[in-house]
């Protein structure tokens, strides 16, 4: 069901507690829609949320994002994550970082990080460790490759493990990808030509339904496997 901001979501009377997800707001007695999109409900009915598509990122706790380092300070880095405010990445927020052994990120470097503090009153903060075990687990500086910007909806679908576009593209040409929830995706493949073709394929996949994935990917096969 397509909903617009201001619509009241009818929650049927039942014993179970309903968790209100992103895109919805509680207004004393009613649940009101805050973002335009499609209203989704979990199978058991205990979760309600709105799936919308926008390009502007609003930092949320525990999301993985790709940022660009814009400044270096003694105590950390200023990173642009595409939100309203620049984020800070502490110099010690890396695996095995000490006062003597700090990471050496240059201005303009790409970082794959996790949002560890996000609220409406303060600038967001990032860190490059997995909070449960303190290890890097893929976070940190990302070298080489190419980063492109896309809508938040495409990022979420690229993170879906059952995404057929990724499986079919990977079968033709192996590539490495890092998806940031802030609308930024990084891709690396064998040759620059393959990277460019992959970027084009991924951007175009937003408009194609999953059922037509195989035929869509076939169009790129010749460009991805050509030798020159």
């Amino acid at each position: 069901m397509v909903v617009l901001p201001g619509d009241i979501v009818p929650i049927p009377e039942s014993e179970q507690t309903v968790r209100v997800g992103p895109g919805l707001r509680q207004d004393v007695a009613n649940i009101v829609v805050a973002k335009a999109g499609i209203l989704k409900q979990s199978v058991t009915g205990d979760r309600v949320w709105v799936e919308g598509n926008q390009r502007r990122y609003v930092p949320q706790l525990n999301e993985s994002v790709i940022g660009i380092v814009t400044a270096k300070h003694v105590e950390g880095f200023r990173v642009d994550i595409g939100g309203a405010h620049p984020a800070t990445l502490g110099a010690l927020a890396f695996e095995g970082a000490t006062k003597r052994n700090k990471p050496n990120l240059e201005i303009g470097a790409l970082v794959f990080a996790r949002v560890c503090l996000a609220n409406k009153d303060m600038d967001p903060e990032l860190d490059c460790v997995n909070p449960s075990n303190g290890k890097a687990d893929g976070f940190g500086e990302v070298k080489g490759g190419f980063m492109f910007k896309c809508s938040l909806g495409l990022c979420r679908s690229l993170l879906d493990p059952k995404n057929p576009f990724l499986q079919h593209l990977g079968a033709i040409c192996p590539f490495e990808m890092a998806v940031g929830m802030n609308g930024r995706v990084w891709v690396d493949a064998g040759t620059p030509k393959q990277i460019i073709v992959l970027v084009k394929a991924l951007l175009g996949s937003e408009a194609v339904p999953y059922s037509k994935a195989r035929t869509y990917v076939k169009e790129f096969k010749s460009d991805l496997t050509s030798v020159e």
Partner: protein
Amino acid sequence: MTVVTPGERLGLAGEFFASNGTVEVGDHIYASIVGTVTTTKSTTSGELDTIQVIPTKKTMKSSIPEVSSIVTGKVLRVNPRMATLSIMVVGDQPCADNFQGIIRVQDVRATERDKIQIYNCFRPGDIVRAEVISLGDSRSYYLSTAKNELGVILATSVAGHTMIPISWEEMVCPKTKAVENRKCAKPVAIGESSTQ
């Protein structure tokens, strides 16, 4: 009862001890506010009599934060290292002009000072009771809430309603039942003074 205005010469610096409402410049004592001049005989011999100017209007009785005075202010902004307050009341006397105060993250509470998340203690718009620990730098006083009776005394939830404290660290919105984290001050019973 003579009424004086700021700048009027009250006496010689050697004759009196310049107290509230007066200022000593060079050899003379001048009045600094509008009010009535009073002289009080000193209790110990050898000491000068005190001269002070008592303000005629209650609104002129403005107060200035001193070290270890209890102040009440509103949180203007928070950042990971400190919370900035606009000091509005010193003791129970409102200030004529708001002063700025800072609560550093290590002065928020007495225990576990390094594990404080400032966003779970104060938010912009909260009314906080704090104690002045230092006159600070040129921009702001340094404040502390490291006591049971200091902390957030009034806060508004995201839904816009005044919250009720339920523990040292939590406040609840009475309409939406949402719990928010704050460093709460010990509530004072009606009739008790908050400065006791």
